[in-house]
C-alpha cells in the first residue's frame, strides 16, 4: 500500500501527470505469469550447436600449453575455439565510452587471473558432447601466487593480477591510481573538531542470481548478417562489444532481446553474445552459449566487495566538520564496471549531508577473484552502508539521538555538495521525520520543525575558502582523454610503454590551492605544480556546469 505525503513539496510538484504517482502494470507481467514470455532459450533452431568453455581451476595461473587433440576427435565436436581465433581478443566494457584500457580477453591465451576464466571453447552437436570434450582438453597450468585481499593487492611485491595495470590499480583520468575528491581541508577540519571518530566497513560480493542464466543464441541471417537472441539487459552495449571483439561492423549484427529473465545488473557484461556470434562465424551454424547454474555463481560477475575507512571530525553537539574516506573496491581480475562505480560513488560522497571539508581516495583494485560488475545501485549502496553505520557510531559516541544527528547534518536545498553542484530536492529531513513518526520515535521540537527547504544555501552554498590538494598516487605512462586508443591505431589498446606505477603510499598533503578572489580571477597554480587543479567554481558556475556520468565536467 503506497501512502503519498502530498503535503510535502506541494508547490514543487505538478499533479497532472499521467504516470508518475500512479500504479502502473508492467507491460510484460501477463506474459510472465502465464508462462508465455519468450526468453532467448525459447527460440529453436534446426542444427543448433552448443558452446561450453574450458575453465581455469586455479585462481591465478600461466597457461603453458593447451592440448585439444583428444577433444578434437570426440564424437559431436565441430570446432574448438582458442584465444587466437578471436579477432580482437582484448577489451574493456567501458571502452565504448572511452573509459579505461582494454584489459580482458574473451578467451585467455597466456594467463588466467580468476577461477573459472575461459581458455578454450568447445562447439559441439549437443551440450553433453561439448561437456564431454571439455573434459578431454588438456591444459598445462603453471600455478601462480594469488591475492584475494584489496589491501594485500596494493602492497609492494603483490602478485600482478592484470598486466595492463601492473600496480593492481585502475588508473583514473590517465593521472592517478585512485579517484580523488578534495573539498575544503579535512586536516584543518580535524584540528577544529572536538573529537575524531573512525570506522572500518567491509562488504562482501553479492551474486545477482537470475532465474534465467546468462546466455545468447546466434544464427546466420540473410545479407551476411547474424541474428542474436540474448538475455542481455544492455542490448546495444552487447551489440557494440560484439562488434569490437569480432571486428565486425555493427550493421551486420541483428540483436533481439527484451525479455530478461532476471538481471539486476548481472547481464550487462556481454560475454555470451560475442562468443555465440564467433561460434556461428566459425561454423556457419546457429550456436548457443549459456552459463549453467554453477557457472552463473562462480564465473558470472557479482556485485563487488568494498572496504571503506571513514574518519570524521565531529563537534560535541554532533555537527560533522570534516569527513575523510579511503575506499577500496574489489574489481576482481578485470575492470568490467568497477571503475565507473567508483566515479559514481565518489560523486555521492559524503552522503546526504552537508560537511564543509570532505576528502576521498578511492581505489579500484585488481585481485584474483571473479570480476565484479553492476548490481542495483552499485557504487552507492556499499558506501551508503558504511556512511549510515558510521552515523550510528557517531550518534552512540557523541550521545546524540541517531535521527536528530541525521537531521542536524542533513543537506538542504541550495547547499554546495562536495562534487560542486548545488543540492536540490533534498528531502532527507522529511524522510527522517516521517520515519520517526512511523516508528513512534520521539524527536525534539527543533528536529520536528526542520525543513530541507529552509536554512540551506547562503554561506552553505559557497565553495570552501580553500581546498587542500595533492598529487598523491600520480602515475606516468598513461594518457588522459582517449586513452583507450592511446596514440595508436584503433584495436591496439595497450599503454605506450609499461607504466611505472607507484604503489599505494600516502605522501604529505602538498601543495595547497588558494582560490582566486572574485571578481578578479587570477591564475592560481604556480609553475612548480605538475598539473593545475581544476579551477574553483562558485555556486553560479555550478548551476551551469555539472559532472558528467563518466569523465568530467560538461555544460548542462
Amino acid at each position, binding site marked *: 500500500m503506497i501512502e503519498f505525503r502530498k503535503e510535502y513539496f506541494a508547490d514543487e510538484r505538478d499533479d497532472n501527470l499521467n504516470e508518475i504517482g500512479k500504479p502502473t502494470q508492467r507491460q510484460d507481467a501477463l506474459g510472465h505469469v502465464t508462462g508465455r514470455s519468450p526468453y532467448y532459450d525459447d527460440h529453436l533452431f534446426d542444427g543448433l550447436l552448443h558452446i*561450453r568453455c574450458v575453465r581455469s581451476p586455479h585462481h591465478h595461473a600461466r597457461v603453458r600449453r593447451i592440448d585439444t587433440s583428444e577433444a578434437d576427435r570426440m564424437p559431436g565436436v565441430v570446432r574448438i575455439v582458442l584465444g587466437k581465433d578471436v579477432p580482437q581478443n582484448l577489451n574493456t566494457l567501458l571502452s565504448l565510452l572511452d573509459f579505461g584500457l582494454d584489459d580482458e580477453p574473451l578467451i585467455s591465451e597466456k594467463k588466467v587471473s580468476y577461477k573459472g576464466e575461459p581458455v578454450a571453447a568447445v562447439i559441439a552437436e549437443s551440450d553433453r558432447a561439448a*561437456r564431454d570434450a*571439455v573434459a578431454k582438453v588438456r591444459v598445462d597450468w603453471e600455478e601462480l601466487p594469488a591475492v584475494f585481499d584489496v589491501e594485500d593487492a596494493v602492497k609492494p611485491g603483490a602478485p600482478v593480477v592484470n598486466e595492463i595495470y601492473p600496480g593492481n590499480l585502475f588508473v583514473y583520468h590517465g593521472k592517478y591510481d585512485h579517484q580523488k575528491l578534495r573539498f575544503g581541508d579535512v586536516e584543518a577540519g580535524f584540528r577544529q573538531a572536538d573529537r575524531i571518530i573512525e570506522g572500518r566497513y567491509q562488504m562482501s560480493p553479492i551474486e545477482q542470481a537470475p532465474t534465467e542464466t546468462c546466455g545468447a543464441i546466434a544464427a546466420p541471417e540473410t545479407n551476411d548478417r547474424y541474428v542474436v537472441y540474448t538475455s542481455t539487459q544492455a542490448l546495444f552495449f552487447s551489440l557494440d562489444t560484439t562488434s569490437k571483439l569480432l571486428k565486425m561492423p555493427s550493421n551486420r549484427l541483428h540483436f533481439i532481446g527484451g525479455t530478461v529473465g532476471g538481471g539486476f545488473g548481472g547481464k550487462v557484461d556481454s560475454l555470451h553474445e560475442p562468443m555465440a556470434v564467433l561460434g556461428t562465424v566459425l561454423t556457419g551454424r546457429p550456436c548457443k552459449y549459456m552459463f549453467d547454474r*554453477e557457472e552463473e555463481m562462480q564465473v558470472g560477475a557479482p556485485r563487488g566487495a568494498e572496504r571503506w575507512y571513514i574518519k570524521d571530525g565531529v563537534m560535541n553537539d554532533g555537527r560533522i566538520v570534516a569527513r575523510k574516506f579511503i575506499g577500496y573496491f574489489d574489481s576482481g581480475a578485470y575492470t568490467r564496471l568497477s571503475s565507473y562505480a567508483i566515479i559514481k560513488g565518489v560523486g555521492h560522497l559524503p552522503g546526504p549531508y552537508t560537511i564543509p571539508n570532505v576528502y576521498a581516495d578511492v581505489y579500484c583494485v585488481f585481485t584474483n577473484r571473479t570480476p565484479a560488475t553492476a548490481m542495483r545501485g552499485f557504487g552507492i549502496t556499499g558506501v551508503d552502508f558504511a556512511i549510515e553505520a558510521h552515523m550510528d557510531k557517531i550518534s552512540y559516541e557523541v550521545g546524540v539521538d541517531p535521527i536528530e544527528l541525521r537531521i542536524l547534518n542533513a543537506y538542504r536545498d541550495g547547499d554546495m555538495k562536495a562534487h560542486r553542484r548545488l543540492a536540490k530536492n533534498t528531502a532527507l529531513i522529511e524522510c527522517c521525520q516521517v520515519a520517526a513518526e512511523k516508528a513512534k520515535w520521539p524527536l525534539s521540537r527543533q528536529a520536528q520543525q526542520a525543513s530541507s527547504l529552509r536554512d540551506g544555501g547562503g554561506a552553505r552554498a559557497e565553495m570552501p575558502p580553500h581546498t587542500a590538494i595533492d598529487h598523491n598516487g600520480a602515475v606516468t605512462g598513461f594518457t588522459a582523454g582517449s586513452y583507450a586508443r592511446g596514440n595508436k591505431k584503433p584495436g591496439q589498446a595497450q599503454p605506450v610503454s609499461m607504466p611505472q606505477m607507484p604503489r599505494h603510499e600516502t605522501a604529505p598533503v602538498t601543495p595547497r590551492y588558494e582560490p582566486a578572489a572574485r571578481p578578479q580571477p587570477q591564475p592560481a597554480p604556480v609553475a612548480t605544480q605538475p598539473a593545475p587543479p581544476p579551477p574553483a567554481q562558485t555556486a553560479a558556475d555550478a548551476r551551469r556546469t555539472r559532472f558528467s556520468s563518466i569523465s568530467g565536467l560538461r555544460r548542462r
Partner: protein
Amino acid sequence: MPVRVETYERLDEAARALASSRTARFLGGGTLIMRAVNAGDQSFDTIIRARDANWSAIRAEGDGFVIGAGVTMAAVVASRDLVFLAPVARSVGGPAIRNMATIGGNLFAASPYGDFAAALLALGATVNLAGSSGRGIPIDDFLRDRERHATSLVQSVSVPRPRDASAFRFVKVSRVKPKGISLMSIAALLPQMGGRLQGARIAYGAMAPTPIRVTAVERALEGQSLDIATIERAAAVATEGIDPPTDALASSWYRREVAGVHLKRLLSAERR
C-alpha cells in the same frame, strides 16, 4: 559419451546390474543424479532404474515400519503411519523436490543434504539391501561405510516406532525458509523410563561428511531427567569430538558456535 538408461522389472536384477558396473548409477527420484547428468558428470555413463512396486511401499512390521527405499518425501508426509517423520520429510526441499526425492537417495546424499538420513540415524533404523537375504545393516554402520555401499542398492529401511510422540524431535537449521539447505539438522530420540532418559540417541546432519551420532551429548543425557541442568550440560558438549565442515552456507566456526544453542532449544522444546 551419451548416457544409457537400463530399466529392470525386479529390484534384485537392478542390484546385480549396479554391482557389476563401476560407471553405473541407480536412479531413485533423480534429484541428485539428474543434476549430475545435466552438469556432464564424467564419472558415470549408465543409469539404472527399477519398476518394482514394493520399492515404494510402506508397511507396518513388528514394533515399527518398513519403508521402501523408493518412498518419496511427499509420500512420507502423506502417510498416516509415519506421522512422527512427517516434519522431517517436509523440511526436505520444496514441493517439487519432495515429490521426487526418495528416502533411499537421501541415505547417499552428500553433506549438507541428508536431513532425513540424520533422523533415521537418531531413530536407530536398519538398512536392508536388495539381493541380500538376512538381517539388515544398522544405519550407524551403513553411514560409516557409505562409500563401500556405493554400488549397493537399498531395498528398504526398517524404522522402530518411537514410544511416544514427544520422544522424537527434529529441527533443521537453515537461513532461508522454507526450502533452505541445512546449516545443521538435529534429530533426537529421547525415550524416558520413570522420568529418566534411557537410550537417548542424538544425530546431526551437515556437521560431518555423513550424518553422525553425537555420543558426548548422549552420555550427558543418559540416565538423567530432561531438566535445565541436564540440558545445559548436554549443550556444553554439543560439538565435542566433532569437526564441522566449512561450506558456502556456514563456516566450521559458525556451526560450532550455534550447535549448542540449537541443541538446547530442541531439548527444551522451545518454539523458535
